[in-house]
C-alpha cells in the first residue's frame, strides 16, 4: 500500500485459481469440487439458483468461510493460510453492510484507516472514490439517509478505495428495483472498464449475468455445470440444466440413432430430428433436443422433413416487441415460440390453431436426457 493512485496503470490486477474446492456442512456438500481460473481483469459471474453454492464459493475466496478441502490461489499465492483481513480482496455484500454508526466518508475511509493511510492522502482517496461513484457531496451523510441505490454506490466505493486486485460482489443489485438495477449494471461495468480490476460477481438473475460478464459459470448442486462466454452458454449449453436455467428452452425427447459430421440424428415422436451434438452423445443414448423459442419458425407442414413439430396453439401472449405462442404438441408436451412483431403480424395466429414448427438442426443442441 504505498500511495497507489486510482489509475488503471498502477493498480495490480489479480488472477485467481480455485482447485477442487469443497465445502461440507455435516454430510452435505454446499460446494462440491469447484475448479476455475479467473483471468487478469476478467469479469466472471457465478450464476445459479439459490443454494447452488455460488455465494459459499465467494465467501471462501473472501476468507469468511473455510474450505473443507481444495486450494484457492491468488496471483500464485495460496490464500488458505490468510485470514480475511490480510487477503486484500474487496467485497460488496448483498445488503451493503455499510456501518450504520459512521458517515459515508468514514465508511469509505475505513479500509484506508486499517492500512494506516492518513491525512491528505486518505481525504483525497475518499473524495476520489465518492466522485467515481457519482456521490461527491454525500460524505457527511449517514447510510440510513441514503436511498438503496446510493447505499449500493457507497458500498462499491468502500470496496474499491483500497484498490484491491480482486473485487467480489455478492448479489449486489438484488435489493434494487429493475430500473435502478439496469442503471447500476452499466455503472459497475464502467467502473470495471476504468479501473480494470478482476471481478467475481454472484447473481441468480440470468439477464444480469448475460449483460455484465466476460464469462459466466453456471452453478448447480455445488458444482460448476458449465463455464464460458454468455454466447457459448446460451447457444451451446452442454446440459439440460444450463439450457433451462439460462434463457428458455424447448426440450424434445428422443433417441440418438446416428452421428453425422458433428450432428446427432434422433428418432422421436415427431419423427426424425437433427441437432448439434453439444453433449458428445453416442448412438443409442437417450437424449433431448434443446431449442430456443426464437429459433422456431412457423412453417408449412405439407412436405415431410427433419425437425418438424406439429401442435395446437393454447395461448398467445403479447410482449410488445414480440409475441409468444404456447403450443401443446401431439404427445401433450408444451412448447413455446417467440416471434418478432414484424414476423408475427404477417399471419394472425389464434388459440386453437394447428400450426407446424421448424428449425435448423445446427441451431439446436442434443443433450443427455438426464442431468
Amino acid at each position, binding site marked *: 500500500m504505498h500511495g497507489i493512485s486510482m489509475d488503471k496503470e498502477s493498480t495490480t490486477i489479480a488472477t485467481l485459481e480455485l482447485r477442487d474446492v469443497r465445502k461440507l456442512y455435516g454430510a452435505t456438500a454446499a460446494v462440491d469440487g469447484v475448479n476455475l481460473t479467473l483471468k487478469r481483469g476478467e469479469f466472471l459471474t457465478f450464476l445459479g439458483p439459490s443454494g447452488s453454492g455460488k455465494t459459499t464459493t465467494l465467501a471462501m475466496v*473472501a*476468507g*469468511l468461510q473455510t474450505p473443507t478441502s481444495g486450494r484457492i490461489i491468488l496471483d500464485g499465492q495460496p490464500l488458505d493460510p490468510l*485470514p*480475511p*483481513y*490480510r*487477503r*486484500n*480482496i*474487496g*467485497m460488496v*455484500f*448483498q*445488503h451493503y*453492510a455499510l*456501518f*450504520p*454508526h459512521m458517515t459515508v466518508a468514514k465508511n469509505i475511509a*475505513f*479500509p484506508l484507516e*486499517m*492500512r494506516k493511510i492518513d491525512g491528505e492522502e486518505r481525504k483525497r482517496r475518499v473524495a476520489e472514490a465518492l466522485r467515481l461513484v457519482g456521490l461527491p457531496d454525500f460524505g457527511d451523510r*449517514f*447510510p*440510513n439517509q441514503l436511498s438503496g441505490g446510493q447505499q449500493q454506490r457507497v458500498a462499491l466505493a*468502500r*470496496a474499491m478505495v*483500497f484498490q484491491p486486485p480482486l473485487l*467480489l460482489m455478492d448479489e449486489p443489485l438484488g435489493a434494487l428495483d429493475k430500473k435502478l438495477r439496469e442503471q447500476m449494471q452499466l455503472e459497475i461495468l464502467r467502473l470495471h472498464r476504468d479501473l480494470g480490476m478482476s471481478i467475481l460477481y454472484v447473481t441468480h438473475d440470468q439477464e444480469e449475468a448475460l449483460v455484465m460478464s466476460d464469462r459466466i459459470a453456471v452453478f448447480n448442486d455445488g458444482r460448476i455445470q458449465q463455464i464460458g462466454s454468455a454466447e457459448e452458454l446460451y447457444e451451446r449449453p452442454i446440459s439440460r440444466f444450463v439450457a433451462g436455467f439460462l434463457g428458455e428452452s424447448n426440450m424434445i425427447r428422443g433417441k440418438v440413432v446416428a452421428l453425422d459430421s458433428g450432428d446427432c440424428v434422433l428418432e422421436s415422436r415427431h419423427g426424425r430430428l437433427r441437432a448439434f451434438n453439444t453433449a458428445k452423445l453416442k448412438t443409442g443414448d437417450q437424449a433431448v433436443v434443446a431449442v430456443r423459442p426464437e429459433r422456431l419458425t412457423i412453417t408449412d407442414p405439407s412436405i415431410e422433413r427433419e425437425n418438424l413439430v406439429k401442435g395446437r396453439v393454447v395461448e398467445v401472449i403479447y410482449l410488445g416487441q414480440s409475441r409468444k405462442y404456447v403450443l401443446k404438441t401431439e404427445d401433450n408436451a408444451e412448447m413455446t415460440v417467440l416471434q418478432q412483431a414484424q414476423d408475427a403480424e404477417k399471419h394472425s395466429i389464434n388459440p386453437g390453431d394447428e400450426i407446424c414448427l421448424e428449425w435448423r438442426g445446427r441451431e439446436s443442441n442434443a443433450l443427455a436426457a438426464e442431468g
Partner: protein
Amino acid sequence: MLASLRPRGAGWLVLPAAVLLLLFFAVPISWLLAASVSYPQLGLQNFAALYEKTIYLRVLGNTVVISGVTTFWCAIIGYPLAFTMANGSPRVRRALVFIILIPFWTSLLVRTFAWMVLLQKQGLINDLLMSAGLIDSPVALIYNRLGVYIGMVQVLLPFMIFPLYSVMVRIDKSYSQAAATLGAPPIRNFFRIYLPLSLPGVLSGASLVFISALGYYITPALLGGPADMMIAQMIEKQISQFGNWGLAGALAVVLLVGTGVSLAIVHRVLGVRAGWRRA
C-alpha cells in the same frame, strides 16, 4: 383497521390501575414529599440539615458510588455473557438464559441470606480458601463494601444482560464480516464495529442497573457494614427510629431527583446515539 378495535372512550379500561396508583402510590408519596418542606414546620430546614450534617452527604455519596461501581461490574461481567448468548449456538443460548433467570425465581431476601451463608467468616468461601491453603485467617467478605458489591452485582446482573442481548442479536454479522474484508483484524474490528453498535444496549442496561441500585435497601442492609449505608436505609432509619418524617421526605426528594436526573442524562445520550439508528 386497528382504530376500530380501539373505540373512543376506552380510557376507563385503565381506571382500576389509575385508582390504585393514585391511592396507594401518588398520595403517600406526595404526602412524604410534602413532609420534606412542612414537617415539623414549613421551610427548608430539612434540606438544610441534609446539607449541613456530613453523615447525610456521606450516605448520598455512598449511594452514588455503590450504584456506579455495581453498574460498572455488571457491564464488565454482563457484556461477555450477553455476547456469548447473542452469538453462540441456540443450545448455549438456552442454557445461559436459564442460568441467568433462575435467580429471578428466588426471593431477593433468600438470595441475600444465601450470600451471607457463603461469605461469612466461617462461610463456604473462607473455608474453601483456607483448606486450599490460600489464606491463613478468614477474609472479611461481608459486612463491608465488598459484600454489598457482590450481592448487588449478582442481583442486578440480569438487568444488564437482557437489554444488551436484545441489542446484540439485532447486530447483523455482515458488519463484522465487511470490516474483516476491509482489513480490520479481530480486536480492531470489535472496537470499531461491534462495540459501538452494541453501545445502546450497554447504556440502557447500565441505566436500568444504576437506577435500580440507587434505591436498593435489603442487600446493602444485610451484606454491608455501618459505613456502607445507602439512602434507602437512611430513609427507613429516619422514620422507624426517629419518626423524622420531614428528613425522610427530604431524602426521598433527593433520591427522586437524582433518579430523574440520571434518567434524563441517559435518555439524552441514548437519543444522540440513536441519531444514526433513525430511519
